[in-house]
Structure formats: C-alpha cells, structure tokens
C-alpha cells in the first residue's frame, strides 16, 4: 500500500506499493505479443507433440522415456521435461527474464518508471515477481499440456521406471509432477541469471543471450567427464537428476543436492542483480547498464559460489571420481533386467516369477577389460545371468552399454534372440515390443559399490 509521508507538514511523493507495481509489470509483459504467443505455444504445442508422437511407430528412443510413449501417458511429460531442460526453458527464460530490465533501456522508460514508482527497490521486486509469474506459467504449460495429450491418446497406464520396475499410474503421476516441480529450481537459477544479465548488460543483446548460453555451457559441462562433486555443484544438474525419482528406491541424494544448488544460485544471482540495480545511476546519460565492472562484480560471486559448492559436495559425499564404477553399473543393469524380465514373462503369459527368485547378476567390462573399469563410454559389455525357478540351467544374455557421464545408460541387447536379441517378442496375441531388447537405466553417481 502506498503511503504519503509527512515531513515538516509537507507531503512527500508516495511510493508505489509492490502489489501495484507487480500488476503494472504484469500488464506490460502480458501485453507483448511474443509473450502471449509463447504462453499459447507452451500450453498447446507439447500436447499436440505428445499426441502425435505417441501414435507413431517410430518413437524418440534417444530421449529418456521416449521408448515408452506408446505405452503410457506419463512418458510424454518426462520426454518434454528432458527436452525443456536442455533447450526450451533456457530460450523461454531468455525472452522473459533476460529482457525484463533491458526492455526499459531499449524503450527509454527508466526515468519515467522511477518518477512514477519512486523506489528502485520496489521496481526490482515487482519486475522479478512478474517475471517469475510468467515463467511459472510457461513451465506449467508443457507439463499440463503433454500430460493431457498423453492421457487423451495413450491413456493412464503404468510407467516403466529407469530400473525397469512398474510404477502404478497414480504413483507415476505423482512422480511426474514432482519431477517438474524439481525442475523449477534450475529454472529459477536460469531466470535469476537472466535478471542479472538484463540488469548488468542493459540493452546489449548479450543480456538476452545469457540464459541460453549459460544453459548451453551447463549442458556441455554435463557431457564432460567431470568429477561427481563438480557435476552436482552445477546449477543445471536438477534438469538431469529428476531421473532418480523413477528408480526404486528413488535416488534422492543427487536430486536434493541439485535442487538445493539451483535454489542457492537463484537467490544469489537475484541478490546480485538487485544490488547492481540499486547502484545504477539513472541520471547519467552515458549509463545504459552497469557495464563491464558490474559484470565482473556479478560474475565473481557466482564463480565463488561454484567453488564453495564443489568443496561442500566433495566433503559431504564419498564420490570424487566419475561416480560410474563397475560394481554400480553391474548392479543397475541386473536390477533393471530382472524387472523387465518379469514384464516380458507377463507378455509371453509364462508363469510369474519374482526378482528375488531370478537372482539376476551382471558382469561387466569396459574396453574389453583394458584400462580403468569406470567412467562413461559406449564400450561397456555386460553379461547378465539369471536363474529360472525349477530349471537347473542359468540363463545368459549379453548387453552393450552406452553409459553417459550423467549416469544414464542405454542397454542394447546382443542376444540370445529369444531373450534380448530382437526388438519384438511373439506373444499369444501377436508381436509386441521386446522390453529386454533395448532399455534405459541409471547409475546413481553418489551411490557406493557395496551391495546393500
């Protein structure tokens, strides 16, 4: 609420309250055609995409959960989340957060706004809240839209998790929602980076490009063979670590660390943007942003935060290497195989078995046993053994594994044909996709090799 201050009997100009400033900023944002179009696209396009792709014979198998899009509605929102975290959200954020302050520079409206509101601090808060509102709207759109698109075309069926176990539709829905909520943390970090760039770089296009460039750098970093403590300390890691929600038990350690790091980045970058904004001299005609010095002042604390986070994660967790060790790969593959074997058994109408009775184990080597048996690469070869109840013979299946540096792997069956060597299995009702032929899995980077 605005207040008129009395000093020596003379009224000073009232400062505009944050709620009024927020409404003002929201009106300005929503009046822009590009924002309206983005909101519309976010609330429609993902649903259409999921509906279309789910009916195709060719599925986006290179995307996590893409191979399950024909089977359940809950795969669609996860495919969209993987795509959004890498490409869509950084671009959307750059249009909103990267431009929210720079647009006033471009339009030459700063002085007008300051005279009207009479408080740079309140302007900053109002702009940030309006920006946050639009970003949440943009994030909620794909989640809602892709879910609806999937439900309408595929239906509410169980989802196969990253370790092969089946999630009941209700459980899958809760985890999908949680995954999108967790992705808000790195989204907010990117938005805060956008605000910082918008404040520090003024009308320079670099301010607008900062969120996508930053996100690209984070994506590239995740592809590099970095130590786990560095990987987890990067603000974009929660765009990947939501994968851990789809294993049993859930891999919560990396997820919580990723979310916490994202939120700390969001807070620090916002505070830095706020301080830079308050220091700005709006009467100086040569000042259209905070310039190089401010960029340095903005970047150094964030670099310091990265170093501090790396140190904390390194001390708090046992993993300092790549986190991808032979024992963990073997355990993850064997677990996923056992779950999916049960699924295949059901497809073939064979007598049901349990994972415990299968006693599946895997034996893996990297680079044919040459060199260190750990780390990412597509040169992992594994042999899975399992026991069938009542049969003396031990089953054997071979897999080639392509393990990413983030712990995600794709297991490609190498035979025998009846088990995992062919993409279809012949069921009493006809041919069906073979769940053991190719599947996704996840190695928990923070986990230990000891079997629990």
């Amino acid at each position, binding site marked *: 609420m*605005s207040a*008129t201050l009395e*000093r*020596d009997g*003379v*009224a*000073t*100009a*009232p*400062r*505009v309250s944050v709620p*009024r*400033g927020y*409404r*003002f900023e929201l*009106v*300005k944002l929503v*009046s*822009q*055609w590009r924002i309206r179009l983005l909101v519309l696209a976010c609330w429609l396009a993902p649903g259409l995409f999921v509906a279309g792709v789910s009916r195709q014979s060719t599925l986006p198998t290179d995307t996590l959960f893409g191979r399950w899009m024909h089977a359940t509605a809950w795969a669609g929102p996860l495919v969209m989340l993987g795509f959004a975290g890498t490409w869509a959200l950084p671009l959307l954020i750059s249009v909103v957060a990267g431009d929210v302050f720079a647009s006033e520079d471009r*339009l*030459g*409206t*700063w*002085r*007008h*706004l*300051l*005279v*009207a*509101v*009479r*408080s*740079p601090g309140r302007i900053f808060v109002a702009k940030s809240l309006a920006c946050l509102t639009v970003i949440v709207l943009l994030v909620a759109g794909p989640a809602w839209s892709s879910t609806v698109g999937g439900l309408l075309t595929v239906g509410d069926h169980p989802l196969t998790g990253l370790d092969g176990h089946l999630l009941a539709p209700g459980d899958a829905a809760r985890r999908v929602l949680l995954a999108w909520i967790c992705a808000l943390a790195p989204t907010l970090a990117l938005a805060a980076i956008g605000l910082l760039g918008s404040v520090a770089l003024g009308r320079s296009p670099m301010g607008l490009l900062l969120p996508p460039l930053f996100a690209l750098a984070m994506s590239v970093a995740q592809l590099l063979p970095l130590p786990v403590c560095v990987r987890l300390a990067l603000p974009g890691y929660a765009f990947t670590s939501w994968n851990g929600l789809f294993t049993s038990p859930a891999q919560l350690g990396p997820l919580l660390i990723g979310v916490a790091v994202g939120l700390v980045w969001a807070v620090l970058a916002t505070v830095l943007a706020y301080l830079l904004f308050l220091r700005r*001299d*709006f*009467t*100086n*005609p*040569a000042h259209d942003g905070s310039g190089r010095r401010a960029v340095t002042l903005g970047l150094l604390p964030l670099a310091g935060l990265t170093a501090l986070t790396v140190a904390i994660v390194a001390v708090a967790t046992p993993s300092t290497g790549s986190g991808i060790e032979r024992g963990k790969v073997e355990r993850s593959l064997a677990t996923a195989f056992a779950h999916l074997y049960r699924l295949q058994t059901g497809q073939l109408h064979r007598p049901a078995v349990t994972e415990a009775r299968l006693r599946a184990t895997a034996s893996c080597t990297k680079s044919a046993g040459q060199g260190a048996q750990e780390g990412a690469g597509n040169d992992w070869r594994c042999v899975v053994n399992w026991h069938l109840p009542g049969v003396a013979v031990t089953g054997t299946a071979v897999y080639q594994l392509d393990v990413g540096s983030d712990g995600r792997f794709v297991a490609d069956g190498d035979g025998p044909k009846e088990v995992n060597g062919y993409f279809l299995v012949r069921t009493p009702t006809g041919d069906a996709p073979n769940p053991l032929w190719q599947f996704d899995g996840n190695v928990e980077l923070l986990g230990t090799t000891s079997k629990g």
Partner: protein
Amino acid sequence: MDALHAVRARGITKCFGDVVALDQVDLEVTRGHIHGLVGPNGAGKTTLLGLLLGLAVADSGRLEILGTPVERALAGPDGVAGFVDGPGLYPSLTARQNLTALAALRGQDARTAGVDDVLDQVGLTDVADDRARGFSLGMRQRLGLAAVLLVRPRLLVLDEPSNGLDPAGKRHVHGVLTRLAADGTTVVLSSHRMDDLEALCSEVTILATGRVVFSGPLNGLAAVSRELDYRVRTSDPRAARRLAAGTAGIRTVDDPGVRQDAEFLVVRARVPALDELVVKLVRSGIAVRELAPVVSPLEAAFLALTEQRSDGRSVAGERDHAGAPGERPGAATARTGQRDDATARTERQEAGR
C-alpha cells in the same frame, strides 16, 4: 517555506565521474509561471530537470521544490511530474492502456483518474485505443504530456515537449501548458525551439557548460541582446538602403548566412536606432511592409551568451585558432573561459537591473 518560488536552487553542483554536468547553478522559478530552460547540447539541462524530478540529488548545493528541501533521490514532494529524454511509453499498450496502467499505479481507476479527460486535453481521443507503437513522435509527446497530467501536478517538468509536434499538436500542447499555468501549476520546460519558449515562457534560464549564464524574465534579455539583425521589407528597397546607411546606429548586413532578397534589407541595430529608421522611412513615403528580427531576441541572447554563432562555429573555437603562436589551443580556451565568466556575470547583473 518559500511561498513565491516553486523551485529554489542555490549552488547546485552535479558531476558524473570527471564530467561536471552542473556547476554552482542558482535557479528560482516563480510559482504559476512557465519557465524555459535553454542551452546548447550538453549544457546540463536534462541533468537539472532530472534533479527537479527527483531522479538524483545534487553533489552539493541546496534545492527546494515546492518549499520542501530535497535531500534524497526520489524523495521529493508530491505534485511533481514530468519527463526527461522523451515520454516513457510502452508501445505494446494502447494510449488509454498506458494511462490506465499509470493511474492504477497510483491506486486509481481510469474514470476517477480522468484518463478520457487528459486524452481529450492533448487531442488524442480519436486514437485512444490505438497502440502507442504506431504513434508519431508528436503523438508520443502529447501522450507523455497526458500521462503527467494524470498526476494533477503542481510542478510540471518537461524536456523538449514540442519535439516532433505538428502545428496542430503544438497548439494543443501550448494551450494545455498555458491553462495549467493559469490554474497555478508551475511549468519548467527545456526546448531548442526559441519561438516556443518566447510564446510560452515568462522567465528563462540559459545554461552553458553547466553554468547559468542568464536567468530572469524574457524582457530582461533585451539588455544582453545588444544589436539584433532585422529584416525590413519596404516599397522601395534602394531608397530604404540609402536611408539606413545615413541613420546613426544602423548597419546594413550582407552576411552570407542571412537570406538575401532584392525586396529585403537586413540591418543590424538596437531598438532605438531601428525606431528612428522606421520613422525616417515613413516620412520619406516608403511603406514598411514587414519588419522582423532575423533571429528572435531569445535566440540572439542565447547565441551571444553561449558564445555560439548561427553558422554553428563557436567563438571559443575561433579564439582557439587565434591563440598566440606556439601556444596550446587549450590555453587560449582556458583564458577565454575566464573572461566569459566575467562577461556573463556582468551581463546577468545588467539584466537583473
């Protein structure tokens, strides 16, 4: 509390790094008057207007606005409105939406804030629902004026409000400003359009390189204007030229910068000598069909006081080149600056008398 002056500034200095934007500026603006602020580019006009709007505070000096000392940025008294560096408008909003959003910032709706009324005052009712994106500069200026009128200001601060206005728009804006002043609102405006300032202002302040070189009523400029060039159109230009040559205090001007025309005679004179020439012309049976200054008195004073010529060359620049052999140009300029200060002080005192 100063009941006479809406603005009272004493020794205002404002620097941006090494650049001194305002240097010991004194300013008094009488309540209910329209006060013009003129000066060459970079003279400090926008900085001074920014201080009046509360966008910044002076590094030193004392500033009172509407009787209230201003000590912090954006903490000036209520009732001050205006714009510097053009009106702040959002192109994606219509004219009405721009004003309604501003009114909502102050907790008012469009009706109680009088959005339609101010649109009507500036002549934008017909385009009220058009997006500001398509507005011409003149329309934007008028919409900016409408925006500040929403505040019902007691002190209106405008930077170049006539920029881009067509004659009809200018008439609207002049009418609005004149009515506001008649109702007791004080208006401080900057402009490079001397005709606008002469038509609107009762007082002017001339700034040059951050210093006040004149401040006072417009008619006080006559004292510093000295001789002016006048264009005289008569029924017999040859005879008129002969008469002018024989009149004390009159010089005919053949300046290539002044438009030459067979029908016109351009003379340089003070007002009394010009009066004498007119009397002589009439007595000689020569009809005076037109008599007007080549440049307005305000413009002449502006050029004289800011050391500029109408051809764009600065006197200081000429003196630079005329410096002693082997002397750095800067040294000549510095000396010139010292003498200019003394000259300006004398002229101010003269004008004040």
